[in-house]
């Protein structure tokens, strides 16, 4: 997503602060996490990269810098700060990061999400059933499944990057929502295995 030109000097802006006149930009109505943090959309992102981008952006838009300024600027500072915090959270979680790439939002729709493979649901159900009896076996199976999902997602998103990182909804991303949904089920199982860390 690119930001609209600066309302004051009409320069193209690359971030929350106009490069031409230094004005804090109004917060766009739909702010995606990549734009919020100024990161190139991609799957392979280290938490440290996200934290670094978050820290830099937070410094630029922090409300403390706009104390005593016009109300519109203070509102914008608050809005950017909220957006930047939310973006950090959204990109750190692999599932929502993948969903932002694949469908342009951080969560699956409540209805009309991907149709789940019946064999996969069967597997989830049998794992849930076995959890109390043999948690070690379930943990091993879940770890293996998670690793396989990551491999599949990695190759899917690297093919997408080779296609020039097209926007959400591109054909190269068609399989992503179902894989990310599987990740959701696997995470659910993991949460039951490690209740204290959930």
């Amino acid at each position, binding site marked *: 997503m690119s930001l609209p030109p600066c309302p004051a000097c009409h320069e193209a802006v690359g971030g929350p602060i106009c490069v031409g006149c230094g004005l804090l930009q109004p917060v766009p109505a739909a702010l995606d996490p990549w734009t919020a943090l100024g990161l190139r959309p991609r799957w392979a992102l280290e938490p440290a990269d996200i934290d670094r981008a978050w820290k830099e952006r937070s410094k630029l838009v922090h409300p403390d810098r706009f104390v005593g300024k016009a109300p519109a600027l203070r509102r914008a500072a608050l809005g950017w700060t909220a957006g930047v915090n939310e973006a950090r959270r959204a990109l750190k979680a692999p599932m929502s990061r993948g969903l932002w790439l694949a469908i342009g939002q951080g969560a*699956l729709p409540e209805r009309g999400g991907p149709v789940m493979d019946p064999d996969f649901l069967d597997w989830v159900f049998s794992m849930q059933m076995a959890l109390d009896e043999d948690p070690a076996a379930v943990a091993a199976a879940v770890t293996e499944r998670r690793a396989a999902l990551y491999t599949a997602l990695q190759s899917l998103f690297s093919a997408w990057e080779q296609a020039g990182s097209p926007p959400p909804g591109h054909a190269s991303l068609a399989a992503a929502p*179902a894989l990310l949904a599987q990740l959701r089920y696997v995470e659910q199982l993991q949460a039951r295995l490690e209740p204290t860390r959930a």
Partner: protein
Amino acid sequence: MAYSQKVVDHYENPQNMGSLDKNDESVGTGLVGAPACGDVMKLQLKINDDGIIEDAKFKTFGCGSAIASSSLVTTMVKGQHIEEAEQIKNADIARELSLPPVKIHCSVLAEDAIKAAIADYRRKRASQAAAQ
């Protein structure tokens, strides 16, 4: 957000929890999942030759609303004809349990489970008829 008393009742005292023999020709099994939250629900219906649902059992791994929705539908469909049960809409379930908007997908899951179980039963019957 608080759960309604009906959700709490079904959650604390679920009706018809368990399973039926999935290889029984008169049992239809529906296994459905909600990708948005990772819940899984299994609903099994025992259906007689007249198409009447004689027994219903469920097993659900999910939140309180998902458990309550599946428990409720087992009580609703027992004694119903499958064509009647197929008409149950998620809105009926959501209304009965006073589900908040963020939990509507649990009632959708329960509706899908009924349809999947009946579809499975019909498939079994069709392949049985074809074999004869």
